[in-house]
Every structure is written in C-alpha cells, then in structure tokens.
C-alpha cells in the first residue's frame, strides 16, 4: 500500500513538473519534483527506503519519457541512499541544509545521468548541459524542496502510524 501511494505521488509530481512548471520556468529550467520525493523518502525513512523510492521514481520517469529506460534510476537511487544517511537533526535544525541538500541532490542525479548516458550513446555536452540545464534546475528544485520534503515526511509518519512502514532510519 505504501509503495502504491508513493508511486501515485511520483506520478502526480511528474505530471506537475511536465504540465504545470513548464509554464513557470526559472532561467529556462523546471524543478525536478520527483527527486524531492526521493529526497523526502530517504530523509524520513532511511537509505533503503530512499533507494527503493529512487528506483521507482527513476523508472517511472523513464517509462514516461520512452527512451533510455532505466538511465534515471542509478542517480535517484544514489540520492535516496545519501539522503538516508544525512542526520535528521542537521536537516531540521538548520534552514539552509534542506535547500543545499536539494541543490546537491539535483547535481548528483543529473551528473550520474549524463555520465552513464554517454556510455549508452547519449550525446550531450557535459559542461554546457550543467550550465544550461542542471544549475538552474538545481536552484529551482532547492527552492521548492523544503515544502515537498516536509509533506513526504508527514506521509511517512502516517505510514508508520498505520503500520505500513516498519523500517527504522539508519541514523
């Protein structure tokens, strides 16, 4: 049930980022809302949950896109894992931490995507792409992430209350 709800949430985020935020751009970029869900899952429920949601999120995004299916998975799994080992106290006590975390998470995710993609014939110039797409997208994602991560954390609190998630955070 938990996985179904998270899958629906990921789909909703993907629809919003492709249909709504395509009209509300920041420096020509759109936020990666699916990544913020992965970040939220990792912070709330630990690395294993973060990696699971990262796997789901990456796969769903690629299935919608229809090409290089699976290429988005490693980056998001890595972000989910790293989010899970971030100390929760640090994340909640300092306001700049959630924003900086989301910024770095976007760069890690897209960096892994580009590096792996080049091995499979994805011809995108790395540094031009970073400057043109990744940095603006990272800023935008960072601005919106505290709200979404907060929402995902509340969702996982509800999951634990209902007994749908018994896993504990690693830290």
């Amino acid at each position, binding site marked *: 049930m938990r996985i179904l709800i998270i899958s629906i949430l990921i*789909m909703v985020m*993907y*629809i*919003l*980022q*492709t*249909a*709504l*935020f*395509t*009209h509300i751009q920041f420096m*020509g*970029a*759109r936020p*990666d809302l699916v990544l913020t869900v992965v970040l939220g899952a990792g912070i709330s429920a630990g690395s294993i949950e973060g990696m699971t949601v990262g*796997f789901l999120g990456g796969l*769903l995004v*690629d*299935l*919608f*896109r*229809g*090409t*290089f*299916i*699976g*290429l988005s*998975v*490693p980056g998001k799994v890595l972000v989910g894992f790293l989010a899970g080992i971030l100390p929760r106290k640090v994340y909640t006590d300092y306001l700049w931490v959630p924003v900086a975390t989301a910024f770095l998470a976007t760069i890690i995710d*897209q960096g892994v*995507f*580009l590096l*792996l*993609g080049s091995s*499979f*014939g*994805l*011809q*995108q*110039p790395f540094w*031009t*792409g970073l400057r*043109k*797409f*990744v940095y603006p*997208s990272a800023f935008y994602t960072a601005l919106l992430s505290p709200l979404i991560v907060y929402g995902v954390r509340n969702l996982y609190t509800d999951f634990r209350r209902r007994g749908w998630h018994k896993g504990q955070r*690693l830290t």
Partner: protein
Amino acid sequence: MQRPTRWVWLVLICIVILLLVSIFSTSGNRYHITVVETVLRDVASPFQNGISSLIYRVNESWESLVHLQRLRQENIILKQKIARLSAENALLEESKRENQRWAELFEFKKSQDYQILPAVVIGRTVPDWFSVITINKGKLDGVKPGMPVISTDGVVGHIRQVNSNSATVLLAIDSRSAIGGIIADTRDYVLVEGDVATNGLLRVKPLAQDVRFERGAKVLTSGLGQIYPKGLLIGEVVEVEQDQYGLTITGLLKPVADFPRLEEVFVILNK
C-alpha cells in the same frame, strides 16, 4: 545493520542486469512502446491536458486584463491607419502575385493538400536533455509514429510514440533529430540536425563538398527522408562556419518554430 543475504545480492545483480539491458535496448529510436508505458501515459495525459488547459486560460485572462488599456489606445491608432491601408492595398495585390510565383518556385504544397490535425502541447520532458513534447492527440485521432508535426511557422518535429489519447513529438532541436533539407535558392541538399550545445539553433551540414550557403539562406525540407514532405520551411541560416582547411562549411540555422513557446501544433496525417 544486517549484511544482505546471498539472495538479496542475487536479486540486486539481476536488477542491475535488467536495467542495463533496458537502457541499451531503449537507447535507439523507438516507435513502439510497451503496455506499461501505454497505460502510464494514458492515465497521465488527461491530467496533463487539464492542467495545460487551465494554465492557458489563466494566461489568456491575465494577458487580456494587462493589455486592455493598451488595446484601447492601439484601436484609436489603427482606425487612423485604415485610410492609409486602402492605398497600400494595391501594392499588396502585387506582393500576392509575387508570392504565388515564389510558391511555385519552392514547390510548396498547398495547405488543402494536407490533412492536418491540430493538437495542443500538454507536457514537456524534464530534464531538458531530450527535446520532446507531449500533445493531446493519439491513436484514436489517427496519429501514427513517424508523422510530421508543424506549426503555423514551419517544421516542429515528428511523432515518436503514440498512446490512445496522446503522443510524444521529437522536436527538430533534439540532438537525435536529423532532417533532410534543401537550400531554397541554390537547391543544394543539406542535413539539418539538432544540437543541444547551440542554444536552440540547428546545425546545417552539406551533403556534398561543393555545397555553399550564406547567412540569410532559407532551408526547406527536401522530401528525401521518410518523414517530412518536400517544401516545409525549417529555418534561416544565421551563421556559417568553415573548417580550418576551408574545405567544408557548416552552418547554424535559426528554426522558424518558436520551440520554447509552442502551445499549438499540427500533425500532418497524409504526406
């Protein structure tokens, strides 16, 4: 934390292998999609359509409010121009005759020869590595993979994958796009490719060594590829680059379609 058991490692290795196979097998041009992809997109497209429609209506209302005052002033000025326009009408008739001669020269097909299906853009890919849009017409509307897509200005791209009520369009500016083109003046054949490094411009490469083109040259579709009919306007050459030996030239083309602001496109159902 418990160490993963042998079975967990085996499952993880299988997942990694499946992912690698999936990435490799879907890295090329795909026109047919799996049932899972079809179901996901068929579920999502009504919501994308709804959100896009709402946004367009909000934008239109806002623009109407903002521009209302300006439109009132423009209306006064336009009425004054009406008298002058009557005299200019004679010149316009001559331009129309000249345009007809150019149309015959470029061998443009008349629009009524094409069966055109209008469609609205309901989604764009994120991240922007792939220049792909989603439109609100699909299989049920007669759309098929490989059909060309145009705007009122010119070439936009072609249909990649089709679901029941939506379809994805590979834009001409995508790095996987390659369009057979022809220079309008010289009738030389060129290849027009998308390139993410050129800031929304297309790259023009000659198909023969003696091909020459200049800034301002218009490039049309040649009709030699399987996708685009002949004579559709792709764009205008804005820069010409020569290699270090001066033997070959490439160019940058400003596409006529306004890709970042595409809202409505047309699918050519019959070529």
